[in-house]
């Protein structure tokens, strides 16, 4: 079952130009997965601007001391990340 059109996997900080390009590319039916430095977006003061489901790798969040501020994303582990890639028709690694 592919219930996600495109899974966007982002590993760049919010300042990185590709982060903006990724956000701009989000469309209804897509999902966003934050990994590595991209989880820092959850610490930045920003309204949750996207209408798509946002996931974030828990290990990257915990490593960066962000356990408390990750309310805007569903925290997942690697098995769940694998699962997300199987549910998506396309995957883009930004």
């Amino acid at each position, binding site marked *: *079952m592919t219930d996600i059109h495109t899974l966007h*996997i982002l*590993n*760049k*900080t919010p300042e*990185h130009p590709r982060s903006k390009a990724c956000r701009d590319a989000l469309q209804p039916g897509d999902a966003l997965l934050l*990994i*590595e*430095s*991209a989880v820092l977006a959850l610490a930045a003061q920003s309204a949750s601007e996207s209408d798509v489901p946002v996931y974030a*790798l828990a*290990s990257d969040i915990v490593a960066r001391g962000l356990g408390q501020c990750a309310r805007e994303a569903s925290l997942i*582990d*690697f*098995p769940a*990340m*694998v*699962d997300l*890639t*199987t549910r998506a028709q396309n*995957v883009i*690694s*930004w």
Partner: protein
Amino acid sequence: MAANPIHSYTLVITGAPYSTQAPQTALSFARAAIAAGHTVDRVFLYGDGVHLASSLCTPPSDETHWPTEWSIFLTNNGIPGVACIASALRRGLVNESERKRYELSASNLLEPFIIAGLGEWVEGNTTSSRTLYFHAGG
């Protein structure tokens, strides 16, 4: 209809160990994919990612040795690890036959990695059901 269809993955790593998190994230992903019953068709190292296949990486003993971790994982699961030849030669990663061809002083390709062309990536792109990239962050 199976609730959880089996997928095949080509994983492309373009970030180098010890300068990016890419090889680590990719390894955790690959382990989870195998554990879930999926297959990893091949791991393709491109750009700075080829440094993962160097037999000369020597991190301090209390840090994870990512080339070794990857080497063991690939060997245990029979997954081909391919370093792009153009990326590899530019960055000083060579196997024995390239060493001879270019008359170099040493070879340094870690087993079971092999050196091959981008055709391996093209094949993965067309035959695997998913191709995932692990780039440098920043």
